[in-house]
Protein backbone atom coordinates (compact mmCIF):
# COMPACT_ATOMS: atom_id res chain seq x y z
CA UNK A 1 0.00 0.00 0.00
CA UNK A 2 2.74 2.35 0.97
CA UNK A 3 4.81 1.55 -2.09
CA UNK A 4 1.91 2.13 -4.42
CA UNK A 5 0.97 5.47 -2.95
CA UNK A 6 4.59 6.55 -2.80
CA UNK A 7 5.37 5.91 -6.45
CA UNK A 8 3.23 8.61 -8.08
CA UNK A 9 4.46 11.12 -5.53
CA UNK A 10 8.07 10.47 -6.40
CA UNK A 11 7.54 10.53 -10.14
CA UNK A 12 5.52 13.73 -10.01
CA UNK A 13 8.20 15.22 -7.80
CA UNK A 14 10.78 14.37 -10.43
CA UNK A 15 8.65 15.88 -13.15
CA UNK A 16 8.46 19.27 -11.48
CA UNK A 17 12.20 19.26 -10.97
CA UNK A 18 13.12 18.45 -14.57
CA UNK A 19 12.79 21.53 -16.74
CA UNK A 20 12.72 21.08 -20.52
CA UNK A 21 16.08 20.21 -22.02
CA UNK A 22 16.50 23.51 -23.81
CA UNK A 23 16.24 25.43 -20.50
CA UNK A 24 18.93 23.28 -18.98
CA UNK A 25 21.32 23.58 -21.94
CA UNK A 26 20.62 27.28 -22.39
CA UNK A 27 21.31 28.17 -18.76
CA UNK A 28 24.48 26.08 -18.61
CA UNK A 29 25.57 27.45 -21.97
CA UNK A 30 25.03 31.08 -20.98
CA UNK A 31 26.93 30.63 -17.73
CA UNK A 32 29.86 28.94 -19.43
CA UNK A 33 29.84 31.51 -22.22
CA UNK A 34 30.00 34.45 -19.82
CA UNK A 35 32.76 32.88 -17.76
CA UNK A 36 34.69 32.06 -20.93
CA UNK A 37 34.27 35.51 -22.44
CA UNK A 38 34.97 37.60 -19.36
CA UNK A 39 37.31 35.44 -17.31
CA UNK A 40 39.10 32.72 -19.25
CA UNK A 41 39.58 34.69 -22.45
CA UNK A 42 41.20 37.75 -20.78
CA UNK A 43 43.40 35.47 -18.70
CA UNK A 44 44.50 33.70 -21.85
CA UNK A 45 45.23 37.07 -23.48
CA UNK A 46 47.45 37.96 -20.53
CA UNK A 47 49.53 34.84 -21.12
CA UNK A 48 49.55 35.21 -24.91
CA UNK A 49 50.71 38.82 -24.70
CA UNK A 50 53.27 38.01 -22.03
CA UNK A 51 54.87 35.38 -24.25
CA UNK A 52 54.32 37.32 -27.51
CA UNK A 53 58.06 37.83 -27.96
CA UNK A 54 59.12 34.51 -26.56
CA UNK A 55 60.39 33.14 -23.28
CA UNK A 56 63.58 35.22 -23.14
CA UNK A 57 61.67 38.51 -23.47
CA UNK A 58 59.27 37.29 -20.80
CA UNK A 59 61.99 36.40 -18.32
CA UNK A 60 63.98 39.53 -19.17
CA UNK A 61 61.00 41.77 -18.38
CA UNK A 62 60.50 39.97 -15.10
CA UNK A 63 64.14 40.31 -14.09
CA UNK A 64 64.75 43.92 -15.02
CA UNK A 65 65.61 46.04 -11.96
CA UNK A 66 62.35 48.01 -11.89
CA UNK A 67 60.24 44.86 -12.06
CA UNK A 68 62.31 43.21 -9.34
CA UNK A 69 62.07 46.24 -7.08
CA UNK A 70 58.29 46.37 -7.56
CA UNK A 71 58.10 42.70 -6.57
CA UNK A 72 60.22 43.32 -3.50
CA UNK A 73 58.02 46.25 -2.51
CA UNK A 74 54.86 44.21 -3.03
CA UNK A 75 56.25 41.41 -0.86
CA UNK A 76 57.30 43.91 1.80
CA UNK A 77 53.85 45.49 1.85
CA UNK A 78 52.19 42.08 2.20
CA UNK A 79 54.69 41.04 4.85
CA UNK A 80 53.85 44.05 6.98
CA UNK A 81 50.11 44.35 6.38
CA UNK A 82 49.07 40.69 6.58
CA UNK A 83 50.36 40.11 10.14
CA UNK A 84 48.91 43.43 11.31
CA UNK A 85 45.54 42.68 9.72
CA UNK A 86 45.61 39.20 11.24
CA UNK A 87 46.27 40.51 14.74
CA UNK A 88 43.61 43.17 14.27
CA UNK A 89 41.14 40.66 12.83
CA UNK A 90 41.57 38.16 15.65
CA UNK A 91 41.28 40.80 18.36
CA UNK A 92 38.27 42.45 16.72
CA UNK A 93 36.52 39.12 16.27
CA UNK A 94 37.40 38.24 19.88
CA UNK A 95 35.94 41.48 21.19
CA UNK A 96 32.79 41.23 19.12
CA UNK A 97 32.13 37.55 19.75
CA UNK A 98 33.00 37.61 23.45
CA UNK A 99 31.78 40.85 24.93
CA UNK A 100 28.57 42.77 25.01
CA UNK A 101 29.15 46.49 24.76
CA UNK A 102 27.43 49.59 23.57
CA UNK A 103 27.99 50.40 19.91
CA UNK A 104 28.86 46.82 18.98
CA UNK A 105 26.71 46.77 15.86
CA UNK A 106 28.20 50.10 14.84
CA UNK A 107 31.65 48.58 15.21
CA UNK A 108 30.69 45.65 12.98
CA UNK A 109 29.47 48.11 10.36
CA UNK A 110 32.65 50.15 10.63
CA UNK A 111 34.80 47.09 10.07
CA UNK A 112 33.06 46.67 6.72
CA UNK A 113 33.66 50.30 5.78
CA UNK A 114 36.76 49.66 3.62
CA UNK A 115 34.64 47.35 1.47
CA UNK A 116 32.17 50.09 0.69
CA UNK A 117 34.58 53.00 0.33
CA UNK A 118 36.24 53.36 -3.05
CA UNK A 119 39.96 52.50 -2.73
CA UNK A 120 40.84 55.81 -4.41
CA UNK A 121 39.10 57.64 -1.59
CA UNK A 122 41.04 55.51 0.89
CA UNK A 123 44.26 56.67 -0.71
CA UNK A 124 43.09 60.24 -0.84
CA UNK A 125 42.31 60.24 2.88
CA UNK A 126 45.96 59.59 3.65
CA UNK A 127 47.09 62.23 1.19
CA UNK A 128 44.81 64.71 2.95
CA UNK A 129 46.22 63.77 6.34
CA UNK A 130 49.89 63.20 5.62
CA UNK A 131 50.42 64.95 2.28
CA UNK A 132 52.45 68.16 1.85
CA UNK A 133 49.28 70.24 2.01
CA UNK A 134 47.63 67.90 4.49
CA UNK A 135 46.88 68.33 8.19
CA UNK A 136 50.13 66.86 9.40
CA UNK A 137 52.11 67.78 6.28
CA UNK A 138 54.04 70.65 7.81
CA UNK A 139 54.90 68.85 11.01
CA UNK A 140 56.03 65.78 9.05
CA UNK A 141 58.26 67.74 6.71
CA UNK A 142 59.79 69.61 9.67
CA UNK A 143 60.70 66.29 11.20
CA UNK A 144 61.82 64.87 7.87
CA UNK A 145 59.30 62.04 7.88
CA UNK A 146 58.00 60.93 4.50
CA UNK A 147 54.72 59.06 4.37
CA UNK A 148 53.01 60.09 1.16
CA UNK A 149 54.88 59.11 -2.01
CA UNK A 150 56.87 56.70 0.12
CA UNK A 151 56.61 53.16 1.44
CA UNK A 152 54.81 54.02 4.74
CA UNK A 153 51.93 55.59 2.78
CA UNK A 154 51.63 52.52 0.60
CA UNK A 155 51.50 50.31 3.69
CA UNK A 156 48.90 52.53 5.36
CA UNK A 157 46.68 52.56 2.27
CA UNK A 158 46.99 48.79 1.92
CA UNK A 159 46.16 48.33 5.60
CA UNK A 160 43.03 50.40 5.10
CA UNK A 161 41.71 48.26 2.28
CA UNK A 162 42.69 44.89 3.76
CA UNK A 163 41.80 45.24 7.39
CA UNK A 164 38.27 43.72 7.22
CA UNK A 165 39.35 40.43 5.63
CA UNK A 166 40.40 38.39 8.66
CA UNK A 167 37.81 39.90 10.99
CA UNK A 168 35.01 39.17 8.55
CA UNK A 169 35.96 35.50 8.32
CA UNK A 170 36.25 35.07 12.07
CA UNK A 171 33.35 37.04 13.56
CA UNK A 172 30.48 34.76 12.46
CA UNK A 173 32.46 31.63 13.29
CA UNK A 174 33.47 32.77 16.76
CA UNK A 175 29.94 33.92 17.49
CA UNK A 176 28.69 30.48 16.51
CA UNK A 177 31.25 28.61 18.61
CA UNK A 178 30.54 30.62 21.75
CA UNK A 179 32.94 30.82 24.68
CA UNK A 180 32.08 27.85 26.86
CA UNK A 181 35.12 25.90 25.71
CA UNK A 182 37.38 28.78 26.70
CA UNK A 183 35.69 29.07 30.08
CA UNK A 184 36.20 25.34 30.53
CA UNK A 185 39.90 25.73 29.74
CA UNK A 186 40.25 28.57 32.25
CA UNK A 187 38.42 26.59 34.92
CA UNK A 188 40.91 23.76 34.36
CA UNK A 189 43.74 26.12 35.23
CA UNK A 190 44.90 27.18 31.75
CA UNK A 191 46.29 30.68 31.35
CA UNK A 192 44.83 33.11 28.82
CA UNK A 193 47.55 32.32 26.28
CA UNK A 194 47.25 28.57 26.79
CA UNK A 195 43.51 28.89 26.27
CA UNK A 196 44.01 30.87 23.08
CA UNK A 197 46.60 28.58 21.56
CA UNK A 198 45.16 25.25 22.68
CA UNK A 199 41.44 25.88 22.45
CA UNK A 200 40.52 29.01 20.47
CA UNK A 201 43.06 28.79 17.68
CA UNK A 202 42.43 25.14 16.73
CA UNK A 203 38.73 25.92 16.45
CA UNK A 204 39.21 28.88 14.12
CA UNK A 205 42.36 27.88 12.24
CA UNK A 206 40.83 27.16 8.81
CA UNK A 207 38.75 30.31 8.77
CA UNK A 208 41.77 32.28 9.97
CA UNK A 209 43.91 30.89 7.13
CA UNK A 210 41.20 31.72 4.60
CA UNK A 211 41.10 35.28 5.90
CA UNK A 212 44.89 35.58 5.79
CA UNK A 213 44.93 34.24 2.24
CA UNK A 214 42.30 36.66 0.97
CA UNK A 215 44.00 39.50 2.80
CA UNK A 216 47.31 38.59 1.21
CA UNK A 217 45.78 38.46 -2.27
CA UNK A 218 44.28 41.90 -1.80
CA UNK A 219 47.45 43.36 -0.27
CA UNK A 220 49.51 42.21 -3.25
CA UNK A 221 46.92 43.13 -5.84
CA UNK A 222 45.66 46.48 -4.54
CA UNK A 223 45.86 49.21 -7.15
CA UNK A 224 43.56 52.17 -6.49
CA UNK A 225 44.48 53.21 -2.98
CA UNK A 226 48.16 52.51 -3.50
CA UNK A 227 48.18 54.40 -6.79
CA UNK A 228 47.05 57.60 -5.08
CA UNK A 229 49.70 57.57 -2.35
CA UNK A 230 52.61 56.01 -4.21
CA UNK A 231 53.74 58.81 -6.53
CA UNK A 232 54.89 56.18 -9.06
CA UNK A 233 58.59 56.59 -8.42
CA UNK A 234 60.31 53.92 -10.48
CA UNK A 235 62.27 51.42 -8.51
CA UNK A 236 61.13 52.99 -5.23
CA UNK A 237 57.37 53.25 -4.76
CA UNK A 238 55.94 51.13 -7.55
CA UNK A 239 54.24 47.96 -6.43
CA UNK A 240 53.66 45.15 -8.90
CA UNK A 241 50.20 46.34 -10.03
CA UNK A 242 51.55 49.87 -10.45
CA UNK A 243 54.50 48.54 -12.40
CA UNK A 244 52.05 46.83 -14.77
CA UNK A 245 50.33 50.15 -15.41
CA UNK A 246 53.54 52.09 -15.89
CA UNK A 247 54.92 49.51 -18.32
CA UNK A 248 51.71 49.46 -20.29
CA UNK A 249 51.61 53.24 -20.54
CA UNK A 250 55.12 53.12 -21.96
CA UNK A 251 54.01 50.66 -24.65
CA UNK A 252 56.11 47.95 -23.02
CA UNK A 253 53.37 45.35 -23.50
CA UNK A 254 55.50 42.30 -22.81
CA UNK A 255 56.72 43.87 -19.57
CA UNK A 256 53.18 44.78 -18.49
CA UNK A 257 51.66 41.41 -19.30
CA UNK A 258 54.56 39.42 -17.89
CA UNK A 259 54.02 41.08 -14.50
CA UNK A 260 50.26 40.75 -14.96
CA UNK A 261 50.73 37.02 -15.45
CA UNK A 262 52.40 36.88 -12.04
CA UNK A 263 49.38 38.58 -10.45
CA UNK A 264 47.06 36.23 -12.34
CA UNK A 265 49.03 33.26 -11.06
CA UNK A 266 48.73 34.65 -7.53
CA UNK A 267 44.96 34.86 -8.00
CA UNK A 268 44.74 31.27 -9.21
CA UNK A 269 46.93 29.94 -6.41
CA UNK A 270 44.79 31.89 -3.92
CA UNK A 271 41.65 30.41 -5.38
CA UNK A 272 42.99 26.87 -5.19
CA UNK A 273 44.10 27.34 -1.58
CA UNK A 274 40.82 28.95 -0.62
CA UNK A 275 38.87 26.06 -2.11
CA UNK A 276 41.10 23.65 -0.23
CA UNK A 277 40.60 25.52 3.07
CA UNK A 278 36.84 25.64 2.63
CA UNK A 279 36.83 21.94 1.85
CA UNK A 280 38.88 21.33 5.00
CA UNK A 281 36.48 23.41 7.08
CA UNK A 282 33.46 21.56 5.69
CA UNK A 283 35.16 18.25 6.31
CA UNK A 284 35.62 19.17 9.96
CA UNK A 285 31.96 20.08 10.14
CA UNK A 286 30.86 16.87 8.45
CA UNK A 287 32.97 14.83 10.83
CA UNK A 288 31.12 16.46 13.68
CA UNK A 289 27.73 15.98 12.07
CA UNK A 290 28.46 12.27 11.69
CA UNK A 291 29.06 11.94 15.42
Amino acid sequence: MNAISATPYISSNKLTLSDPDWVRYASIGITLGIIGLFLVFPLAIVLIEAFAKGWSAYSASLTNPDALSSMRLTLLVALVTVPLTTVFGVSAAWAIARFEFRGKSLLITLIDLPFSVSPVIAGLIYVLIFGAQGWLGLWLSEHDIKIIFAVPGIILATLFVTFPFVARELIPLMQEIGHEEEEAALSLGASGWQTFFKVTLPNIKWALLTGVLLCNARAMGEFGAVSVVSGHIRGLTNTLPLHVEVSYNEYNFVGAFACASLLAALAIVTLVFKTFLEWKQNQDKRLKAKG
Partner: protein
Amino acid sequence: MSITVSHINKHFGAFTALDNISLEIPEGELVALLGPSGCGKTTLLRIIAGLEQADDGDVFLKGDKVTDQPVKNRHIGFVFQHYALFRHMTVFDNVAFGLRVKPRKERPSEAEIVKKVHALLELVQLDWLHDRFPDQLSGGQRQRIALARALAVEPSVLLLDEPFGALDASVRKDLRHWIRNLHHELNVTSIFVTHDQEEAMEVASQVVVLNHGRIEQQGSPSDIYDHPANAFVSRFIGQTNIFDLDEHDTDWLQTAGLLTPNQEGKIAHVRPHDIVIEKAKPENNSPATLKDWQHLGGLIRLELVKNDANGSAAPVIAEMPNDQFNQLKLNRGDKVDLRIRQAHWFH
Protein backbone atom coordinates in the same frame (compact mmCIF):
# COMPACT_ATOMS: atom_id res chain seq x y z
CA MET B 1 32.83 25.84 55.74
CA SER B 2 33.95 24.71 52.34
CA ILE B 3 32.15 27.38 50.37
CA THR B 4 31.02 30.69 51.85
CA VAL B 5 29.31 33.41 49.91
CA SER B 6 28.68 36.67 51.70
CA HIS B 7 26.45 39.58 50.69
CA ILE B 8 26.69 39.03 46.95
CA ASN B 9 24.92 41.51 44.71
CA LYS B 10 24.79 41.31 40.95
CA HIS B 11 22.95 43.49 38.47
CA PHE B 12 22.64 43.22 34.71
CA GLY B 13 21.65 46.72 33.72
CA ALA B 14 18.43 47.44 35.61
CA PHE B 15 17.82 43.73 36.30
CA THR B 16 18.78 42.46 39.74
CA ALA B 17 20.15 38.96 39.29
CA LEU B 18 21.33 38.45 42.88
CA ASP B 19 20.12 40.47 45.83
CA ASN B 20 22.38 40.31 48.89
CA ILE B 21 22.97 36.56 48.84
CA SER B 22 24.78 34.93 51.74
CA LEU B 23 25.27 31.20 51.85
CA GLU B 24 27.37 28.67 53.72
CA ILE B 25 28.03 25.21 52.41
CA PRO B 26 29.76 22.70 54.71
CA GLU B 27 32.51 20.34 53.56
CA GLY B 28 31.41 17.28 51.63
CA GLU B 29 27.84 18.30 50.92
CA LEU B 30 26.08 17.84 47.59
CA VAL B 31 24.00 20.99 47.28
CA ALA B 32 21.31 21.84 44.77
CA LEU B 33 20.67 25.46 43.81
CA LEU B 34 17.02 25.22 42.89
CA GLY B 35 14.76 27.82 41.37
CA PRO B 36 12.74 28.85 38.35
CA SER B 37 14.61 30.09 35.30
CA GLY B 38 15.90 33.62 35.72
CA CYS B 39 16.14 33.34 39.50
CA GLY B 40 19.90 33.88 39.48
CA LYS B 41 21.05 30.37 40.34
CA THR B 42 23.43 30.01 37.39
CA THR B 43 24.79 33.51 37.97
CA LEU B 44 25.52 32.58 41.59
CA LEU B 45 27.31 29.40 40.50
CA ARG B 46 29.37 31.33 37.95
CA ILE B 47 30.31 33.91 40.57
CA ILE B 48 31.49 31.16 42.92
CA ALA B 49 33.51 29.74 40.02
CA GLY B 50 34.95 33.13 39.09
CA LEU B 51 33.49 33.03 35.60
CA GLU B 52 31.46 36.08 36.53
CA GLN B 53 32.25 38.98 38.86
CA ALA B 54 29.82 40.07 41.55
CA ASP B 55 29.08 43.80 41.87
CA ASP B 56 29.93 43.48 45.55
CA GLY B 57 30.21 40.77 48.18
CA ASP B 58 32.82 38.08 48.76
CA VAL B 59 33.41 34.44 47.94
CA PHE B 60 35.46 32.17 50.23
CA LEU B 61 36.62 28.71 49.27
CA LYS B 62 37.98 26.59 52.14
CA GLY B 63 38.24 29.74 54.20
CA ASP B 64 40.37 31.63 51.67
CA LYS B 65 38.96 34.79 50.19
CA VAL B 66 38.96 34.28 46.42
CA THR B 67 36.78 37.21 45.38
CA ASP B 68 39.57 38.81 43.37
CA GLN B 69 41.14 35.56 42.16
CA PRO B 70 40.65 34.60 38.52
CA VAL B 71 38.94 31.31 37.82
CA LYS B 72 42.23 29.50 37.09
CA ASN B 73 43.48 30.11 40.61
CA ARG B 74 40.34 28.93 42.41
CA HIS B 75 40.91 25.17 41.99
CA ILE B 76 37.33 24.48 41.10
CA GLY B 77 35.90 21.94 38.72
CA PHE B 78 33.16 23.32 36.51
CA VAL B 79 30.79 21.21 34.44
CA PHE B 80 28.82 23.09 31.81
CA GLN B 81 25.26 22.44 30.78
CA HIS B 82 26.31 21.85 27.17
CA TYR B 83 29.46 19.97 28.26
CA ALA B 84 31.89 22.40 26.54
CA LEU B 85 34.22 19.58 25.61
CA PHE B 86 37.13 20.64 23.39
CA ARG B 87 35.80 19.58 20.02
CA HIS B 88 39.15 19.18 18.30
CA MET B 89 40.59 16.90 21.01
CA THR B 90 39.99 13.24 21.72
CA VAL B 91 38.29 12.17 24.92
CA PHE B 92 41.70 11.31 26.35
CA ASP B 93 43.19 14.73 25.50
CA ASN B 94 40.12 16.45 26.92
CA VAL B 95 40.57 14.76 30.28
CA ALA B 96 44.34 15.28 30.20
CA PHE B 97 44.00 19.01 29.42
CA GLY B 98 43.93 20.23 33.00
CA LEU B 99 47.06 18.23 33.83
CA ARG B 100 48.97 19.29 30.74
CA VAL B 101 48.44 23.03 31.21
CA LYS B 102 49.91 22.96 34.71
CA PRO B 103 53.14 24.92 35.16
CA ARG B 104 56.17 22.74 34.45
CA LYS B 105 57.05 22.33 38.12
CA GLU B 106 53.64 20.96 39.11
CA ARG B 107 52.99 19.05 35.91
CA PRO B 108 53.01 15.26 36.28
CA SER B 109 55.10 13.22 33.85
CA GLU B 110 53.41 12.01 30.68
CA ALA B 111 53.33 8.46 32.07
CA GLU B 112 51.57 9.66 35.20
CA ILE B 113 49.10 11.65 33.09
CA VAL B 114 48.28 8.56 31.02
CA LYS B 115 47.73 6.54 34.16
CA LYS B 116 45.57 9.16 35.81
CA VAL B 117 43.44 9.84 32.75
CA HIS B 118 42.70 6.16 32.28
CA ALA B 119 41.82 5.84 35.95
CA LEU B 120 39.37 8.75 35.62
CA LEU B 121 37.87 7.33 32.45
CA GLU B 122 37.38 4.05 34.27
CA LEU B 123 35.73 5.93 37.12
CA VAL B 124 33.16 7.32 34.68
CA GLN B 125 33.07 3.90 32.96
CA LEU B 126 34.03 5.23 29.56
CA ASP B 127 37.66 4.18 29.12
CA TRP B 128 36.74 2.33 25.91
CA LEU B 129 35.92 5.68 24.29
CA HIS B 130 39.30 7.30 24.98
CA ASP B 131 40.28 7.83 21.33
CA ARG B 132 36.91 9.18 20.16
CA PHE B 133 36.08 12.80 19.53
CA PRO B 134 33.32 14.51 21.55
CA ASP B 135 31.00 14.68 18.57
CA GLN B 136 31.01 10.91 18.31
CA LEU B 137 29.55 10.50 21.81
CA SER B 138 26.01 10.57 23.14
CA GLY B 139 24.87 13.35 25.46
CA GLY B 140 25.17 11.25 28.59
CA GLN B 141 28.66 10.10 27.62
CA ARG B 142 29.77 13.66 26.93
CA GLN B 143 28.51 14.78 30.31
CA ARG B 144 30.45 12.03 32.07
CA ILE B 145 33.60 12.93 30.12
CA ALA B 146 33.10 16.57 31.10
CA LEU B 147 32.91 15.42 34.71
CA ALA B 148 36.06 13.31 34.39
CA ARG B 149 37.84 16.31 32.86
CA ALA B 150 36.80 18.53 35.76
CA LEU B 151 37.88 15.92 38.32
CA ALA B 152 41.32 15.48 36.73
CA VAL B 153 42.71 18.59 38.44
CA GLU B 154 41.43 17.37 41.84
CA PRO B 155 39.27 20.42 42.46
CA SER B 156 38.45 21.44 46.00
CA VAL B 157 34.84 22.05 44.95
CA LEU B 158 32.83 20.80 42.02
CA LEU B 159 30.32 23.13 40.37
CA LEU B 160 27.77 21.77 37.91
CA ASP B 161 25.54 24.02 35.82
CA GLU B 162 22.28 22.23 34.94
CA PRO B 163 24.26 19.01 34.51
CA PHE B 164 21.27 16.99 33.35
CA GLY B 165 19.45 19.78 31.54
CA ALA B 166 20.35 18.79 27.99
CA LEU B 167 19.76 15.05 28.41
CA ASP B 168 16.67 13.02 27.67
CA ALA B 169 14.56 11.69 30.52
CA SER B 170 15.85 8.12 30.88
CA VAL B 171 19.53 9.10 30.64
CA ARG B 172 18.88 11.83 33.17
CA LYS B 173 17.46 9.34 35.68
CA ASP B 174 20.50 7.07 35.36
CA LEU B 175 22.94 9.93 35.61
CA ARG B 176 21.30 11.29 38.76
CA HIS B 177 21.92 8.04 40.62
CA TRP B 178 25.35 7.79 39.21
CA ILE B 179 26.28 11.33 40.35
CA ARG B 180 24.97 10.60 43.84
CA ASN B 181 27.06 7.47 44.08
CA LEU B 182 30.10 9.23 42.68
CA HIS B 183 29.70 11.92 45.29
CA HIS B 184 29.57 9.32 48.07
CA GLU B 185 32.75 7.82 46.66
CA LEU B 186 34.75 11.04 46.20
CA ASN B 187 33.16 13.29 48.80
CA VAL B 188 34.03 16.51 46.95
CA THR B 189 31.91 19.46 48.06
CA SER B 190 29.62 19.95 45.10
CA ILE B 191 26.98 22.44 43.98
CA PHE B 192 24.67 21.80 41.10
CA VAL B 193 22.13 24.10 39.55
CA THR B 194 18.72 22.82 38.55
CA HIS B 195 15.20 24.04 37.91
CA ASP B 196 13.78 20.56 38.46
CA GLN B 197 12.64 20.17 42.08
CA GLU B 198 12.40 16.39 41.75
CA GLU B 199 16.03 16.28 40.63
CA ALA B 200 17.10 18.48 43.53
CA MET B 201 15.23 16.37 46.08
CA GLU B 202 16.56 13.11 44.66
CA VAL B 203 20.23 14.00 44.26
CA ALA B 204 21.11 16.67 46.81
CA SER B 205 21.86 16.42 50.50
CA GLN B 206 21.08 20.13 50.88
CA VAL B 207 18.72 22.22 48.79
CA VAL B 208 18.91 26.01 48.41
CA VAL B 209 15.74 27.48 46.92
CA LEU B 210 16.21 30.75 45.04
CA ASN B 211 13.68 33.13 43.58
CA HIS B 212 14.15 36.59 42.10
CA GLY B 213 17.77 36.68 43.21
CA ARG B 214 17.03 35.88 46.86
CA ILE B 215 17.40 32.74 48.93
CA GLU B 216 13.96 31.58 49.97
CA GLN B 217 15.06 28.60 52.03
CA GLN B 218 18.02 26.34 52.66
CA GLY B 219 17.76 22.90 54.18
CA SER B 220 17.68 19.17 53.65
CA PRO B 221 15.20 17.92 51.04
CA SER B 222 12.82 16.61 53.71
CA ASP B 223 13.08 19.88 55.67
CA ILE B 224 12.10 21.87 52.65
CA TYR B 225 9.31 19.56 51.66
CA ASP B 226 7.81 19.15 55.12
CA HIS B 227 8.43 22.65 56.42
CA PRO B 228 8.39 25.09 53.52
CA ALA B 229 9.39 28.53 54.77
CA ASN B 230 6.95 30.40 52.60
CA ALA B 231 4.27 30.10 49.95
CA PHE B 232 6.76 30.22 47.09
CA VAL B 233 8.79 27.28 48.39
CA SER B 234 5.66 25.30 49.11
CA ARG B 235 4.35 25.87 45.60
CA PHE B 236 7.69 25.24 43.94
CA ILE B 237 8.57 22.03 45.78
CA GLY B 238 6.05 19.50 44.63
CA GLN B 239 2.40 19.87 43.83
CA THR B 240 0.11 21.62 46.24
CA ASN B 241 -3.53 22.64 46.55
CA ILE B 242 -4.00 26.25 47.56
CA PHE B 243 -7.05 27.30 49.51
CA ASP B 244 -7.41 31.02 50.15
CA LEU B 245 -9.90 31.46 52.98
CA ASP B 246 -10.96 34.80 51.56
CA GLU B 247 -12.12 33.08 48.40
CA HIS B 248 -13.24 29.65 49.55
CA ASP B 249 -16.20 29.10 51.78
CA THR B 250 -14.93 27.70 55.02
CA ASP B 251 -17.76 25.28 55.76
CA TRP B 252 -16.46 22.40 53.71
CA LEU B 253 -12.93 22.99 54.96
CA GLN B 254 -14.22 22.62 58.47
CA THR B 255 -15.95 19.39 57.47
CA ALA B 256 -12.68 18.25 55.92
CA GLY B 257 -11.00 18.87 59.26
CA LEU B 258 -8.80 21.76 58.14
CA LEU B 259 -9.94 24.73 60.18
CA THR B 260 -8.38 24.55 63.56
CA PRO B 261 -8.75 27.33 66.09
CA ASN B 262 -5.02 28.06 66.13
CA GLN B 263 -4.48 28.46 62.41
CA GLU B 264 -1.86 31.12 61.67
CA GLY B 265 -2.61 32.32 58.17
CA LYS B 266 -5.25 32.87 55.61
CA ILE B 267 -3.91 30.66 52.84
CA ALA B 268 -3.67 26.90 53.26
CA HIS B 269 -1.35 24.77 51.12
CA VAL B 270 -2.30 21.10 51.09
CA ARG B 271 -0.18 18.40 49.46
CA PRO B 272 -2.16 15.98 47.28
CA HIS B 273 -1.22 13.02 49.50
CA ASP B 274 -2.54 14.84 52.57
CA ILE B 275 -6.03 14.70 51.17
CA VAL B 276 -7.88 11.51 52.13
CA ILE B 277 -10.78 10.47 49.98
CA GLU B 278 -13.77 8.48 51.06
CA LYS B 279 -16.96 7.56 49.31
CA ALA B 280 -19.52 10.21 50.11
CA LYS B 281 -21.94 9.55 52.96
CA PRO B 282 -25.32 11.01 52.08
CA GLU B 283 -25.65 12.88 55.37
CA ASN B 284 -22.46 14.86 54.71
CA ASN B 285 -23.79 16.72 51.68
CA SER B 286 -20.41 16.29 50.08
CA PRO B 287 -19.11 19.15 47.97
CA ALA B 288 -16.62 17.30 45.75
CA THR B 289 -16.94 15.20 42.60
CA LEU B 290 -14.36 12.86 41.09
CA LYS B 291 -13.64 14.14 37.59
CA ASP B 292 -10.79 11.95 36.38
CA TRP B 293 -7.66 10.12 37.50
CA GLN B 294 -4.20 9.19 36.20
CA HIS B 295 -1.78 6.41 37.06
CA LEU B 296 1.62 7.60 38.30
CA GLY B 297 3.18 4.22 38.84
CA GLY B 298 2.49 3.29 42.45
CA LEU B 299 0.19 6.25 43.01
CA ILE B 300 -3.08 7.37 41.54
CA ARG B 301 -3.64 11.09 41.02
CA LEU B 302 -7.27 12.08 41.37
CA GLU B 303 -8.70 15.18 39.83
CA LEU B 304 -11.60 16.41 41.90
CA VAL B 305 -13.94 19.29 41.37
CA LYS B 306 -15.27 21.08 44.38
CA ASN B 307 -18.32 23.24 43.94
CA ASP B 308 -18.01 26.46 45.85
CA ALA B 309 -20.92 28.15 47.45
CA ASN B 310 -20.90 30.85 44.80
CA GLY B 311 -21.24 28.20 42.11
CA SER B 312 -17.70 28.31 40.72
CA ALA B 313 -15.87 25.00 40.34
CA ALA B 314 -12.44 24.74 41.98
CA PRO B 315 -10.09 21.88 41.06
CA VAL B 316 -8.53 19.81 43.83
CA ILE B 317 -5.75 17.29 43.32
CA ALA B 318 -5.36 14.27 45.58
CA GLU B 319 -3.02 11.28 45.51
CA MET B 320 -3.32 7.83 47.02
CA PRO B 321 -1.75 4.40 46.57
CA ASN B 322 -3.11 2.19 43.78
CA ASP B 323 -4.60 -0.53 45.94
CA GLN B 324 -6.36 1.94 48.23
CA PHE B 325 -7.96 3.52 45.21
CA ASN B 326 -9.05 0.16 43.84
CA GLN B 327 -10.74 -0.66 47.14
CA LEU B 328 -12.83 2.51 46.94
CA LYS B 329 -14.31 1.37 43.61
CA LEU B 330 -14.99 4.91 42.47
CA ASN B 331 -16.29 5.97 39.08
CA ARG B 332 -16.08 9.27 37.24
CA GLY B 333 -18.75 11.64 38.54
CA ASP B 334 -19.03 10.02 42.00
CA LYS B 335 -19.42 12.29 44.98
CA VAL B 336 -16.61 11.97 47.51
CA ASP B 337 -15.86 13.18 51.02
CA LEU B 338 -12.53 14.86 51.65
CA ARG B 339 -10.46 14.82 54.77
CA ILE B 340 -7.39 17.00 55.03
CA ARG B 341 -4.66 15.55 57.22
CA GLN B 342 -2.41 18.56 57.38
CA ALA B 343 -1.79 21.88 55.75
CA HIS B 344 0.85 24.58 55.67
CA TRP B 345 -0.46 28.00 56.49
CA PHE B 346 0.78 31.20 54.91
CA HIS B 347 -0.31 34.80 55.03
